[in-house]
């Protein structure tokens, strides 16, 4: 294949591209404000300290933000998986008159960016009394992930042998039971992939979170981190520390499940 030096260069390109910004944040989180204001800039922290992490947790309720983000991401993922499972099963296994229309409608969702729907979304959430609650974010996040989750799940359901389902129904299962006892467990990798896509999408979202859920108690991480900003300053070291705290859970998720995400996508919607 590749010669050795080329391999090293390839590895370096990949790693620098992937890690440099995160690494920079990590390095900054150990620097002091004074060091950051120093020109020319330093690359490695001169007097590494953990004080920014202490500040990150004491200046703002970072743990609360973490908890809020986790709750919102988790609940919206569950909701989207629930809705997507039904839709994917109906699309793959049932006789539908308007299959094409339903599928197109699902994909068309992507054409209406949330930024443009903010005003009516705000009014809906206000009407439902959901402003400044998790609900205001869970519903739109679930919808944002619905198309891709449905496509991924559908392609997995496709591969579950119909005989297994029929056998289960011969044993007295209803169709719905067959879906939840046979099809879904057999499509576990797909559920996983869809779930992670939805989770990361919700974990990252900023604009809706800022507008629909800005109250102190229910803020999610991206909005919370912005509030470390001062009247005249942007305290990068503390913000970096908070960012590291925000990135670590997702990084762990990726390390644990990277095989499944990629193999999930391989089996899933991408295959031609």
């Amino acid at each position: 294949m590749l010669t050795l030096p080329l391999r090293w260069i390839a590895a370096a390109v990949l790693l620098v591209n992937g890690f440099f910004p995160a690494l920079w944040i990590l390095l900054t989180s150990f620097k002091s404000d004074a060091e950051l204001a120093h020109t020319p800039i330093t690359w490695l922290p001169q007097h590494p300290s953990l004080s920014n992490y202490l500040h990150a947790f004491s200046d703002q309720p970072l743990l609360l933000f973490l908890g809020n983000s986790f709750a919102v991401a988790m609940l919206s993922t569950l909701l989207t998986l629930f809705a997507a499972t039904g839709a994917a099963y109906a699309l793959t296994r049932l006789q539908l008159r308007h299959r094409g229309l339903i599928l197109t409608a699902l994909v068309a969702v992507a054409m209406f960016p949330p930024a443009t729907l903010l005003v009516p979304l705000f009014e809906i959430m206000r009407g439902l009394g959901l402003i400044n609650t998790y609900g205001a974010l869970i519903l739109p996040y679930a919808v944002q992930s619905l198309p891709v989750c449905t496509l991924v799940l559908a392609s997995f359901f496709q591969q579950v042998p119909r005989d297994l389902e029929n056998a289960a129904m011969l044993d007295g299962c209803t169709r719905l039971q067959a879906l939840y006892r046979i099809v879904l467990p057999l499509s576990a990798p797909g559920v996983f992939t869809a779930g992670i896509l939805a989770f990361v999408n919700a974990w990252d979202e900023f604009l809706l979170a800022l507008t629909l859920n800005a109250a102190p108690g229910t803020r999610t991480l991206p909005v919370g981190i912005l509030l470390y900003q001062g009247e005249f300053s942007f305290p990068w070291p503390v913000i970096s520390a908070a960012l590291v705290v925000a990135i670590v859970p997702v990084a762990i998720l990726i390390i644990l499940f990277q095989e499944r995400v990629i193999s999930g996508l391989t089996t899933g919607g991408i295959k031609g």
Partner: protein
Amino acid sequence: MIVSRTLRILAWLLLLLALPVQADTVLRVFIGGAAQRPDLFRTLADRYEASHPGIRIEIGSGAATSELQRKYLSVLLNAHDPSFDALMLDIVHPYQFATAGWIAPLDPYFGKEKDTLLADGLPIYRQTNLIKGKLYTLPAVTDAMFLYYRKDLLEQYGIAPPQTWQQLELAAKTILQHKQKPALQGLSMQGAPIEGTVCSFLLPYWSQGKDILDANGKLTLDKPAALSSLKLWKDLISKNVIRRHVAEVKTGDTVNTFKAGHAIFAINWGFAWGVFQNDADSLVKGKVGIIRMPAMTGGTHATCLGGWQWALSNYSRHKAQTADFLRFLASPESVRFITLQGALLPPYLSLYDDADIQAAIPWLNNAKPALLGAKSRPLTARYAQVSDVLRISTSAVLAGSLTAEEGVEDISRRLERILR
């Protein structure tokens, strides 16, 4: 049966015990950032709690800058959210908030007091605090833009503090020429697209006796005056009195530059005086002069009113109690405390003769005439848009991406659309 009944009674008893004897009324006050001194207001709140049993005050913060506060509060208030009862607002915001119905008029809670408060307050408050004839806000602290100068440098070269921009240019050029210090700037001012840059545009504009809006809120932009305002700054940039990077400079940058001794003159808010005099790392302690803003040649001295106001949220569930707390906060006694502790300018005229305050703010007598003539940025429900236009176009002209003429056309065209 008996067991279950006993259990039920026990449960009721527990429930009763769990209820506090008398539930406190909690009033929540929004004080945006640390610069608005929530620490000092906490002390006042403690005093109020002590004399008002059953009332608890919580101070909540949200966002540090005036812009972020506007965004944050408008989201909350637009949702009719009752999270905050009282709000500390930048003086540019109440008009917009009152038009949207987000803040409640205070008239029902302030009878005759309204006139007393207004009579003692700075004259400009008759415009800013009375919105369509109703009292919407009470003053918390006041501020205005001033010209800071290096007393030591001006004295060294026998130069009097400048009264006009022309004199400032001359003074700066003389000192820069003699000093030959590359780090030394002539004048440091705000030019980044931030709220302070709105004032940077308006200061020379107002000095020519012009206004953006008339009393009825109709646009009265005077293009020649706007052009000479922008040209004044461009001219000072071309003569290197103002540095070329001015379009990046924010309020804090000006403070830091002057504090580090890197500027002969600086335009900033009055609060910066305390920073220059008291901060541990200030290199200009005892060398700071402060006077009212220079005028255009043949023009008047005009400055930009700043400061913070108290308002009552229309979605508060405790309006009467909150109004009473605001009455306490805005009383001359409370304001005197804040003024003394924070070295901030008092919004009431009577406090300008107070010996203690004069001792705490030695330049108080210089500040008074400036504040008496201070002007308010345009009072309109569309202020957010007006502010964006003025700051973005001014910053673009300072950066050189627009010429002064293009900048004026830009401002005029946009304001016409917004205010038609």
